């Protein structure tokens, strides 16, 4: 705590201690290597999407940031503190998608219970009002709808005015309007310095609402950048053509070709400028039935996180690994 050199109210993000500092972290459970070496620093006030398929190591990493489990090697710091110390100061909160509530407590009791555990919190009645759960304050949690329970979880998470908020698939089940309102509230808090790290499967949501996307696969970070940087990875189109006995190595040598997949009689060629490729295929080979499609974010996501790709080679084309 003493080494923190913050300039207080006029502090700038650059001078501030990182909200999260993960250094050389691995985590294994016996023979299972859940996290294989992660280095990541999150600045204060950033909204970061943690994107990756199930089993990529997202949850394991988040658990270590929350101090719920210890890294096998490496270290995790939250605002320059051990995660557990940060939690005892009310600096970290998390909202999970399910669970974490007692059915036999009322909504008000749940908030009062949680509030009483922190040194400083907003008054319970204010929190209930802000979260829009004042009308159901006396209802048993078990009788609340899924949406009401989620609002309660958020109310609990915001009680201590956390500097770091971790969210697990935060907008699952919300409609478009709810999602927009949710993110504008999150954005407003981030402007006051709160860092938000959210785990998601939805690339579109990550792209739309996060300042930064960290793509994780098989226990490693495979890409880390802004939405547009991640999109750049996915830039380009795919030409599909029917070409029996295609010579993959010759096709790869054509100018502008990034990769070539031969699947039976079909050939898939990825490139930024596919017009030239199409012209080449039609004039220099027997290719026919050409189809040209844009590579979407989903495809980029799959190609970066897919099982058939070695993450270490994928990062070589990445923004920063």
């Amino acid at each position, binding site marked *: 705590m003493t080494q923190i050199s*913050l300039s*207080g*109210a006029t*502090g700038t993000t650059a001078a501030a201690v990182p909200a999260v500092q993960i250094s050389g972290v691995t985590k294994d459970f016996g023979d299972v290597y859940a996290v294989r070496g992660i280095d990541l620093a999150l600045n204060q006030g950033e909204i970061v999407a943690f994107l990756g398929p199930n089993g990529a190591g997202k949850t394991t990493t988040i658990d270590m940031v929350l101090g719920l489990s210890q890294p096998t090697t490496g270290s995790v710091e939250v605002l320059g503190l051990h995660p557990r110390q940060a939690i005892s100061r009310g600096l970290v909160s998390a909202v999970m998608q399910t669970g974490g*509530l*007692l059915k*036999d407590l009322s909504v008000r009791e749940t908030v009062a*219970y949680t509030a009483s555990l922190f*040194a400083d919190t907003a008054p319970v009645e204010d929190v209930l009002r802000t979260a829009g759960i004042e009308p159901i304050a006396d209802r048993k949690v078990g009788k609340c709808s899924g949406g009401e329970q989620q609002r309660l979880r958020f109310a609990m998470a915001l009680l201590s005015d956390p500097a770091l908020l971790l969210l697990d698939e935060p907008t699952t089940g919300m409609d478009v309007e709810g999602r927009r309102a949710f993110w504008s509230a999150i954005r407003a808090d981030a402007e006051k310095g709160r860092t938000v790290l959210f785990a998601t499967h939805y690339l579109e949501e990550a792209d739309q609402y996060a300042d930064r996307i960290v793509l994780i696969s098989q226990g490693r970070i495979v890409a880390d950048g802004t939405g547009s940087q991640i999109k750049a990875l996915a830039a380009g189109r795919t030409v599909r053509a029917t070409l029996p006995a295609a010579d993959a190595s010759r096709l790869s040598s054509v100018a502008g070709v990034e990769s070539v997949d031969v699947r039976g009689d079909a050939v898939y060629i990825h490139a930024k400028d596919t017009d030239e490729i199409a012209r080449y295929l039609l004039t220099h080979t027997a290719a026919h039935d050409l189809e040209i499609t844009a590579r979407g974010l989903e495809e980029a996501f799959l190609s970066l996180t897919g099982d058939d790709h070695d993450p270490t080679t994928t990062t070589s084309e990445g923004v920063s690994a």
Partner: protein
Amino acid sequence: MTTHTIDPSLRRVPPFGGFNLTVLGIELRRMLRNRRTVIITLILPALLYLMIGTNTSDSTQTEGSGNVSAYILISMAAYGAVLASTSGGAMVATERTLGWSRQLRLTPLSPIVYILLKSIVALALGALSVIAVNVVGVFNGEASMPTHVWITAAIIAWAGSVVFGAFGLFMGYLLPGENVMQVIGPLLAGLAALGGLWFPINSHSTLGHISACTPIYGLAQLARWPLYGGAPHAVWVINLVAWLAIFVGGAAWQMSKDTARV
């Protein structure tokens, strides 16, 4: 908050590991709102006393400084305290299953304070159970023993039941689920029979030797000891302390294994 960065050194840690009266009050209220807990711990032992302890022909026969009815009253108070403390401890099973324990680990509440809170709640419930049986006994009028025996026996039954608060915790960590008491209830009834709460067991028989090794035996003997006076047997105390050590050790072991995903 108008700053753009947050200074963690301005944040405070709550005193006493997060222990406070708001939480204790909510926990106590919660327990008394649970209909099954109230029936099992407050009504059942008193009812059992009325059924077993006041309807037999020998209930007024002399036993120690009191009568047979008093002997059964103390046994049922001890049984109630055991049930109450166990259910108090076993509440952690439900809380783990619901993810509440995980939620609490994201607050400043220290795990030791959490266990302390659960123990206070378990002992409070145990006290209510002992009081319920004794109040029923006083009003019923069948049981007779000197006042100091009433009081010391009740206090020993209650205090000794702390063993079963630890037992409940241990089971709560061992058998997660929302209805762990449905498993433990019959187990406790069996242990109560073996420990000599349902009927007296001849201590020189084979059953008597087995009985002396079971967890309720020490508590049952010690709770009834004021009725007879004299010095308590070392076996009773050893039984109680040994089982306390086993259950506390078991609970601590399970808790330390209780890592991330619950």
